[in-house]
């Protein structure tokens, strides 16, 4: 058990900077997820922490110790690989015992630890098999088992679920979450799948092009994305973006997309006033665009009308692909919505849940305000 600190970490391959000045503090017993599109530097960061890649600049600490020059074997970490990397010539038992044997652990202790872990993971009956005789899900458990028997200070997982089929992946997600609660150890988990990140992490670090975009709890990332990238990356279907201009209308501020206008009431307009007259990006999540007939009572509706291009029946909801004035967007509406391709539909955007970003910096204008609001809400 230990905290992990990335301090000004840089990774370069020649002229190419893969990780650029990464600063993350992971508290003891935390489940931190590194998420981002492929090539964003998340795996590289994890591998630097594991000692499998050299650090070009900066420091990595495990606990209080700088580990830049510590060999992987002396870092007291365990890693689950995407391919599982089970030793094909060893039985499951030997795979799990390998690390302990190298550390000259007494035989009885190894035996007890391996059997306990196997029992815990439900793979006791597989101990004498070879990896090639196991299914994908079983291999994944063995890989996890090989990590737990070592009682490491930090668990590293590099996309451990991406080789599983969809059903197993959902099971494995809750299995790993339970494991984290049970082991009370620091977990650092890399994935490109924002659903995995949202469901498993206590905190999530979103990376793009080698830079940390935002690090926060799943709730805050979703409700208060710091910039356009995070807003678009977290959530599925992705957030709709509209180029817009802010206008002043007495006490309130109006967002004009050219297709529709949204009036932001005076009591919420404060963070936007400085940008009146400027170009912005309006972000609206599909779930905040409602069929006007079924709009919830507690929202602040802004009316929009659009043409329906595609209707996806999900059962619990309907996903509509909409078009208005040459601009396409997506809405997730009430399952009772009567939607027909080619018809027009009256919609309501929930003004309380819109996001406005500066067109130049792509930063959220109301980030600080919303942060305070969330903090207030949590304190109540």
């Amino acid at each position, binding site marked *: 058990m230990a905290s992990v600190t990335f301090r000004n970490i840089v990774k370069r391959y020649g002229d190419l900077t893969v990780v650029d000045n990464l600063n993350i503090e992971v508290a003891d017993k935390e489940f931190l997820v590194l998420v981002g599109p492929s090539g964003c530097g998340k795996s590289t960061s994890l591998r630097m922490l*594991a*000692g*499998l890649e050299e650090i070009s600049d900066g420091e990595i600490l495990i606990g209080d110790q700088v580990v830049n020059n510590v*060999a*992987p*074997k002396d870092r007291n*970490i*365990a*890693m689950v*690989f*995407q*391919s599982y*990397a*089970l*030793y*094909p*010539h060893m039985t499951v038992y030997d795979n799990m015992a*390998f*690390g302990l044997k*190298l*550390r000259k652990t007494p035989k009885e202790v190894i035996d007890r630890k391996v059997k306990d872990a196997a029992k815990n993971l439900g793979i006791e009956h597989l101990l004498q098999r070879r990896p*090639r005789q196991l299914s994908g899900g079983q291999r994944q458990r063995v890989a996890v088992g*090989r990590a737990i028997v*070592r009682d490491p200070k930090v668990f590293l997982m590099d996309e451990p679920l991406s080789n599983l089929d969809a059903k197993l992946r959902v099971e494995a997600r809750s299995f790993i979450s339970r494991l984290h609660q049970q082991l009370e150890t620091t977990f650092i988990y890399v994935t490109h799948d924002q659903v995995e990140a949202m469901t498993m992490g206590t905190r999530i670090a979103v990376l793009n092009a080698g830079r940390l975009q935002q690090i926060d709890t799943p709730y805050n990332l979703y409700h208060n994305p710091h910039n356009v990238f995070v807003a678009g990356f977290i959530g599925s279907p992705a957030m709709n973006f509209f180029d817009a201009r802010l206008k002043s209308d007495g006490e309130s501020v109006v967002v004009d997309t050219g297709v529709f206008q949204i009036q932001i009431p005076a009591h919420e307009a404060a963070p936007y006033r400085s940008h009146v007259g400027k170009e912005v990006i309006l972000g609206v999540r599909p779930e905040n665009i409602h069929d006007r007939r079924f709009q919830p009572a507690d929202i602040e509706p802004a009316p929009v009308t659009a043409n329906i291009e595609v209707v996806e029946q999900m059962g619990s909801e309907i996903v509509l692909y909409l078009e208005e004035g040459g601009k396409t967007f997506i809405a997730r509406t009430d399952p009772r919505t009567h939607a027909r391709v080619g018809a027009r539909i009256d919609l309501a955007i929930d003004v309380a849940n819109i996001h406005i970003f500066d067109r130049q910096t792509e930063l959220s204008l109301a980030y600080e305000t919303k942060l305070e609001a969330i903090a207030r809400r949590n304190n109540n």
Partner: protein
Amino acid sequence: MAVLTEKAKINPDLKPDRLAVGLGGLASILIIFVLGFLWLRDGQATQVVKAFVAIVWGVSGVAGLYFFANMSAESLPERWMKRVQPFVFVGPAMALLGWYLAIPTLRTFFASLYNQQGEFGLSNYVAVFTERIMVEAWTNNILWMIVGTTLTVSLGLLIAILADRSRFENIAKSLIFMPMAISMVGAGVIWKFVYDRNPDIGLLNAVVQSAGGEPQAWLSLVQPWNNLFLIVVMVWLQTGYAMVLISAAIKGVPDDLLEAARVDGATEVQIFFRIIIPSIAGTLVTVITTVIIFTLKIFDVVMVMTGGQFGTEVIGVRFYREMFTSRNDGYASAIAIVLLLAVVPVMIYNLRQFSKRETF
């Protein structure tokens, strides 16, 4: 095959008309073969025409053989068809192998039972294992097998693993592999110069002399070490082969495995012995057995460099001398048979490894 079997199921009885056509076709093809052969041998035609006819005659003749043999097999009742049909296709290959391989082996074996005086018995075999020169040859061959194989494989392994981590991998590997392109006889000639008594010719003696030593007649007078000097030539030739196969196997070990072991706490040496070696065990066995067979059959290097004199006699040279110098067919045959028996177990083990790896 599936289509053929289905046809047979619909009609499981003997079809005499088809059988007749099939056998008739077979007979006419055989006649065409014989006539064609006679015409090609004795006929009056230009070379070009003959060559063209030979190609058409040969290829279509073989195709016709298969076609009519298969037709005959298919016309049999289902039970018999299933038994006969495989042989229609495997049979010709088996027959050729038998003709070129099995029969000569048997004839060699029978020849080995008669000594030079024409007496029947095992006297040749007794001589093979008791004659002084033969005992020397056996001892040397065992030396070749153990020292030669060990050096070749361990050097190949070492170079493969070092090259794998070097920036100069391709250059290094090309250099090591290059001798493979040289024939055994060529290599023998090259190294004969290297070992030459005269330091103006012999590289080794030039080095020894410049280091203040006395030039030696390495291949003749430095006994029994001259055997090792010969083995070095084979190692020089074969290390490239071992290296290439082992190197490919090492590249086939996933990086993830090595990294997992590193995180698990293994040192680089432990990774080598506990992860890499077991992962490439199949290839290692193949390389080792191949080189063993190679050393058992060694002939050219010794023949060219010492001719088997100065205590460097080996089985291969012995066989050649008995067969072509002494004209002692029976004795030579006995040597060949014993050598064959020595190689066969290694071959069988090798083949088993191959088939095992297919299911791996």
